[in-house]
């Protein structure tokens, strides 16, 4: 490693989303500019891992200042070099500006988006090159493994994890310490450590960020688990849609082996532990642990009944610990800082933090990590910056297809496992999709039901057939064929499917339907009785009529109409010819005054 000291380091985000927006072009332009001015030995340019602020990419961070530039293009580079690098003047217009702030804020920690977060799982984000094991080590990487092997017995490790109160971050929230302990007590060798990287919930990309941006944090957590329970082989099951994660994990595994941090006799302490990366092939149900095990064995990913639980009988019939990516990423900090430190964060029953993927109608889209117990209000309006386009908050979907929606009015709900369940939702893996008044809740229920119909493995009749019937009924309602009694029918069927399916997919499939009926019953009634969708989303249930008293005569709808169905003149109210109208809804989306019903 070179002993040369750079006076400044600029990190260009190399996460999938920033790359898709052109961050590598920005980085190349920056390198060229620095060479042009002969600054390349003074200023280091490197790849950064995902900073979580995906909605504003490409992003670049300047160290040691902590200044954060966003939404960059190659043309911005010369100004940054000319003013910031050479003269120390921050380029104000390229800084991230929060909607609620007067000025642009240069320092990350001063913004609400970053300031309200607490980073444990994402401790290295934006600060390391994801492909460098040295940079991981420089930030206490593998120090927890060394401490566990050198100073703790396997029982000590398990006790520490138990005391920390860490609960599985994949969604179910089972106590990790108990899981490891149960596996330790089994004597049937070999045992396995499995990481569930199948993140299939629509709207969730937390695990992607960790696998791509900090792969070693996962490997270290797995190695410590292996030591604790007596396993010598680990597998990371990564969904096929994440090719970069597969690549980075493979590189990380190879680098760790080179350094003697994986393989035989790790750190000379006698632990043997190897990790293999296994790809998925596009099946949401393989995120269910027993289906995942089948998939790892090259079979169809169809769940089986539990008991026996995988800790007793798992991969190839042997005791296996299966935990989520985020769960393993918590292990290093817990071992290094101690269980007491971890329990000081979070609530009584839910310790530590949770990473959320905040998307949908919020201004600040991205990945955020907050202490358990943070309110929805803080998440959506503090960190999220509130609803964009001047619209209002209607509901938030938490927990993906297994979760439910929480309506406006319940913003004071604290985020932890128990309180979310009590309002009909679920922590899930961490996907949080915010919805405004243009989202139809009946359509949302149908969206999730469609998803589950496609992804159901088909084994249980109730799930396979019942979900299809629910899908058809919801489609009838959305297309104007709803009848009195349909809502009660849906409720009864949903509860039945839930009660008679044996895997998590079927068991929780009722949640989207039941939670939308619970909080938005009047929307269902409006679709059925009035044949009207108040969100103006279901095209069969829209009148396509301009309301004279609301129309401001701006002509926006006229300009967006693709079928010539709208007539308008300056200073006149617009009108829509229903014969010509193709129901594309361009006019509704263009109208800023909600003048079309």
């Amino acid at each position, binding site marked *: 490693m070179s002993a040369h000291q750079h006076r400044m380091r600029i990190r260009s985000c190399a996460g*999938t*989303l920033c*790359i*898709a*927006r052109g961050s590598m072009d920005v980085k190349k332009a920056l390198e060229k500019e620095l060479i042009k001015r002969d600054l390349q030995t003074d200023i280091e340019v490197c790849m950064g891992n995902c900073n979580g602020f*995906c*909605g504003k*990419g490409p992003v670049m961070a300047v160290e040691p200042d902590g200044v954060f530039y966003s939404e960059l293009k190659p043309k911005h580079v010369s100004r940054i070099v000319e003013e910031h690098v050479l003269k120390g003047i921050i380029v104000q217009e390229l800084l991230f500006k929060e909607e609620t702030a007067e000025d642009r804020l240069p320092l990350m920690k001063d913004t609400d988006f970053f300031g309200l977060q607490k980073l444990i799982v994402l401790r290295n984000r934006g600060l390391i090159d994801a492909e460098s094991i040295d940079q991981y080590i420089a930030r206490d990487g593998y120090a927890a493994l060394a401490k566990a092997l050198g100073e703790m017995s396997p029982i000590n490790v398990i006790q520490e994890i138990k005391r920390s109160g860490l609960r599985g971050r994949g969604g179910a929230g089972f106590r990790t310490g108990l899981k490891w302990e149960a596996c330790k007590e089994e004597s049937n060798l070999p045992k396995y450590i499995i990481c569930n990287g199948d*993140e*299939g*919930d*629509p*709207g*969730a*990309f937390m*695990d*992607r960020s960790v696998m791509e941006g900090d792969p070693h944090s996962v490997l270290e957590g797995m190695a410590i688990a292996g030591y604790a329970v007596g396993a010598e082989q680990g597998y990371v099951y990564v*969904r*096929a*849609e*994440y*090719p*970069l994660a597969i690549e980075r994990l493979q590189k990380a595994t190879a680098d760790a082996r080179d350094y003697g941090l994986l393989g035989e006799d790790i750190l000379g302490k006698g632990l043997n532990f190897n990790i293999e990366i*296994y*790809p*998925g*092939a*596009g*099946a*949401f149900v393989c995120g269910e642990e027993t289906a995942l095990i089948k*998939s*790892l*064995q*090259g*079979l*169809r*990913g169809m769940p089986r009944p539990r008991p026996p639980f995988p800790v007793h009988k798992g991969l190839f019939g042997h005791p296996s610990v299966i935990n989520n990516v985020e769960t393993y990423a918590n292990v290093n900090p817990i071992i290094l800082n101690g269980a007491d430190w971890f329990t000081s964060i979070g609530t009584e029953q839910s310790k530590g933090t949770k990473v959320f*993927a905040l*998307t*949908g*109608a919020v201004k600040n*889209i*991205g*990945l955020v990590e907050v202490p358990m117990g943070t309110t929805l209000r803080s998440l959506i309006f503090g960190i999220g910056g509130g609803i964009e386009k001047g619209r209002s908050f209607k509901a938030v*979907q938490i927990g*993906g297809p297994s979760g439910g929606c929480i309506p406006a009015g319940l913003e004071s709900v604290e985020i932890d496992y128990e309180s979310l369940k009590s309002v009909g939702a679920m922590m899930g893996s961490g*996907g949080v*999709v915010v*919805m405004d008044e243009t*989202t139809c809740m009946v359509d949302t229920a149908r*969206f*999730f039901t469609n*998803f589950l119909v*496609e*992804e159901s*493995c088909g084994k249980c009749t109730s799930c396979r057939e019942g979900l299809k019937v629910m899908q058809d009924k919801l489609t009838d309602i959305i297309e104007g064929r709803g009848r009195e009694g349909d809502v009660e029918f849906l409720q009864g069927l949903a509860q039945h499917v839930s009660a008679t399916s044996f895997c998590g997919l079927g068991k929780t499939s009722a949640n989207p339907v039941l939670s939308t009926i619970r909080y938005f019953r009047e929307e269902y009634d409006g679709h059925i009785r009035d044949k009207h969708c108040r969100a103006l989303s279901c095209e069969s249930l829209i009148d396509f009529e301009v309301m004279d008293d609301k129309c401001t005569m701006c002509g926006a709808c006229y300009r967006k109409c693709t079928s010539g169905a709208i007539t308008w003149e300056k200073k006149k109210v617009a009108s829509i010819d229903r014969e010509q109208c193709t129901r594309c809804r361009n006019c509704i989306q263009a109208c800023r005054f909600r003048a079309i019903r």
Partner: protein
Amino acid sequence: MHDLHATPERPCGTQVEAIPSHELDRLEEIIGRYGGRSRYLIPALKDAQEMFGYLPKEVQHRLAGGLNVPASRVFGVVTFYSFFTTTPRGRHTVRICLGTACYVKGSTRILETVTNGNGLGFNGGSTSEDGRFTVEPVRCLGTCGLAPVIMIDADVHGNISPSNIIKHFDNYS
């Protein structure tokens, strides 16, 4: 060597002639890579699909023999997982995300725009006339920060709208 991708004469989904035996011999390399072990069936099928573009019966049978797995099980796996196809696809696979975050940002309109005209030649089907692209709706690519999102092969393209999607296709021959 066979060009096994979809063409105007042989659109996606049609019956094609079987891959000849000497070409199937190339599968030995994949079988060797996984030591002939049955539990690596899924990665083996992924590699085989990359090699041939699709997984017809004759490829499935060869892999079944090489990995010591009943052919019926291979068929079961191929038909279970959505990444596998038994019919030829276009040279590039376009995945249009219909996950929650993309859905609330209007991704179904994008799917309609692509398959129903706009000079890409899909004509309501899933493969373009010139055999370049096969379009597939998928459920969440995990890049929700850029919703709506599509993937063309391994490249992610975000902030897609019906008006800008066409220009992304131009970069792929």
